[in-house]
């Protein structure tokens, strides 16, 4: 009897965590094939965690408010990039530069988030596809501003940033001014050899920033507005009956997410050291969402634990597959395609599983209701 119960429990656990399990197996297979050293992998993973976790954390609040995965986080990333473009053109260096970038990005992110929230309120029940299309649409507007507006309309004159033709921002910008300035502010190195090469670098200041955001998110859940969001996420109509301003709460959730994404993008870019003006933001949207889902989150439920597990597993796969593909078939290209496939595939799988699970739960609760009614009759 007890054994059966255990088997059922294991099956249920596996069914609920199928995506992380697949990834753990995948990484376990790839580690020996790729043949990287342990220190290298740990160092890389720490780098990826500090680079990405702020961005992935920004996705949590809309999920709490029942709005699904916020594909509109790219809007925040765009705002962050605009901030970075300005400070590079003005030559503001190091941490003051990043702070200034954050100050510039905030109002833009608030505005974009408000727009996105408004739109999503008009498309209730299909928030995800709408937020996805908003990110596409805004990408066009962003290009219009950055590629044609910057120079003639928005005065910027810096050879480093503006194309030689006199307007428009370059394809890639070297962020020498702010590269790793948060990370190097206070960091230690472990296990390095005599020359200081290799080893594991731990950037404390970035880690503190991320920890701070985690605490803010935990605290936020307990505040009045956080409770309201959860209520709206549970059931919009009930929340409305209870006197919560549903529309306002939903817009607020998206605005907060967008602003956090903007800050996250600034941290990300400072860590990367280069800005791909026309690609970075759309890529980061996909990778952040995939990472969160890999960590075992679903469309309606995500925690801080999911964020970190997801980043570790997803980026481990990212580091391993090109090398594994090269060692296995002799073509790194296959590994590259494979990781693109995995990123998209994981999102597909997680969305499908979520839908199937919700339907099953709905059917079950309906059956239970019918049974209980029969019993009373």
């Amino acid at each position, binding site marked *: 009897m007890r054994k059966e119960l255990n088997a059922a429990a294991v099956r249920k656990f596996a069914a609920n965590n199928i995506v992380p399990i697949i990834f753990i197996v995948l990484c376990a297979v790839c580690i020996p094939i790729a043949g990287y050293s342990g220190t290298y992998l740990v160092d890389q993973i720490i780098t990826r965690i500090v680079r990405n976790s702020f961005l992935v954390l920004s996705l949590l609040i809309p999920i709490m408010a029942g709005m699904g995965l916020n594909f509109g986080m790219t809007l925040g990333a765009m705002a962050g990039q605009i901030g970075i473009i300005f400070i590079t053109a003005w030559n503001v260096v190091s941490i003051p530069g990043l702070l200034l970038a954050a100050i510039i990005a905030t109002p833009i992110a608030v505005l974009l988030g408000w727009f996105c929230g408004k*739109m999503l309120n*008009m498309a209730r029940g*299909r928030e995800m596809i709408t937020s996805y299309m908003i990110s596409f*649409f805004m990408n066009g507007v962003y290009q219009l501003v950055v590629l044609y507006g910057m120079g003639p309309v928005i005065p910027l004159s810096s050879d480093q940033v503006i194309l030689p033709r006199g307007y428009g921002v370059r394809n890639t910008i070297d962020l020498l001014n702010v590269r790793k300035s948060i990370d190097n502010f206070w960091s230690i190195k472990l296990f390095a050899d005599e020359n200081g090469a290799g080893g594991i670098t731990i950037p404390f200041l970035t880690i503190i920033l991320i920890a701070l955001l985690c605490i803010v998110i935990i605290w936020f859940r307990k505040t009045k507005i956080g409770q309201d969001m959860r209520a709206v996420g549970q059931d919009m109509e009930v929340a409305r009956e209870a006197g919560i301003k549903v529309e306002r709460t939903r817009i607020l959730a998206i605005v907060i997410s967008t602003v956090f994404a903007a800050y996250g993008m600034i941290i990300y870019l400072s860590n990367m050291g280069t800005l791909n003006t026309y690609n970075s933001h759309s890529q980061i949207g996909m990778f952040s969402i995939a990472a969160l889902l890999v960590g075992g989150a679903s469309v309606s439920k995500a925690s801080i634990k999911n964020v970190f597990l997801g980043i570790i597993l997803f980026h481990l796969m990212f580091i391993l597959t090109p090398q594994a593909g090269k060692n296995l078939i002799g073509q790194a*290209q296959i590994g590259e395609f494979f990781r*693109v*496939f995995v990123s998209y595939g994981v999102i597909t799988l997680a*969305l*499908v599983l979520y839908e199937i699970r919700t339907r099953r739960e709905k059917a079950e609760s309906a059956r239970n209701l019918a049974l209980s009614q029969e019993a009373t009759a």
Partner: protein
Amino acid sequence: MMDRIKELAKSFGLPRLIIAGFLMALFIISPFAGLSITAAITDVAGRFGQNALMVLAMVPMIHSGCGLNFGLPLGIIAGLLGATLAIETGIGGPVSFLLAMLYSTPFAIIFGWGYGKLLNRVKGSEMMIATYVGFSSVAFMSIMWLILPYSSPTMVWGYTGQGLRTTISTEGFYYHILRDTLAIRIGSLQISIAEILFFALFAFIIWAFLHTKTGTAMTAVGSNAVFARASGINIDKQRTLSVIMSTWLGAIGILCYQQGYGFVQLYQGPMYMAMPAVSAILIGGASVNKASITNVIIGTILYQGIVSMTPSVMNSLIHTDMSEVLRIIVSNGMILYALTRKSGASR
């Protein structure tokens, strides 16, 4: 009088009116910008023939209530498999086009069947999942194009002898097979009758199908699923059928595109091909749950008209090419408009 104009504008749809007006303006401006109208018309007609079938591929799924077919890349992949297999045989000329259509059909049916089964299990969020089904299948096939054992020298990378090229010319196979057949040529004006007939044939088939018993049942499923079930229609079966049809039309659509464009685009090529088609049918006046053949025709002409006219007109007027950016804004803005519309939100 004012009311009647307002009524007319309402029935025609404001965005459609604005876009049609914009296109008219472009045509009026173009002679002053030193462009030839006939060349412009030739261009739009060619693009219409190339793209209309992929826009038509939206219709069955919208009818059965599966929403906009963001998973069009799956159908395109079936078409690409057909195209590459046909080229692999080495038979040239018109036969290769028929072969490509023939080979892609079983793939389209199998893919469409699986895709339909999947969409039946996720009712209510088809569009989001369809988008990602499209993306993941393109990414998966990118791996396959590298390792599938193709050997035709026209397709395989020259120096390694392995893996397909990113673009393969259809020259010598079915390049302009429809475009140059039965073409009307007056000066620089060229309109291909065969291409338009080819589209008309499929459009007629779909139109006729939607008026058969099965077609009516499909529309019933889309407009009111509860009512359809009450009248004894197997909802899941109808939806799967519609998805198979859409996927197959996507496969034929890409073949038609390739014969006009001249190249087979593999790897990441099909990734975003759903967006122009989705946007075209919406510009044509369709909504998330309602579409007709007329929407397809008007939408394709308007969308392709703007895409082909804006760059040339803008380039000659202000010497900057913002057309790509404008295209992104207009086409995605159109999709957004459809998604956020009240009437569309009922389902």
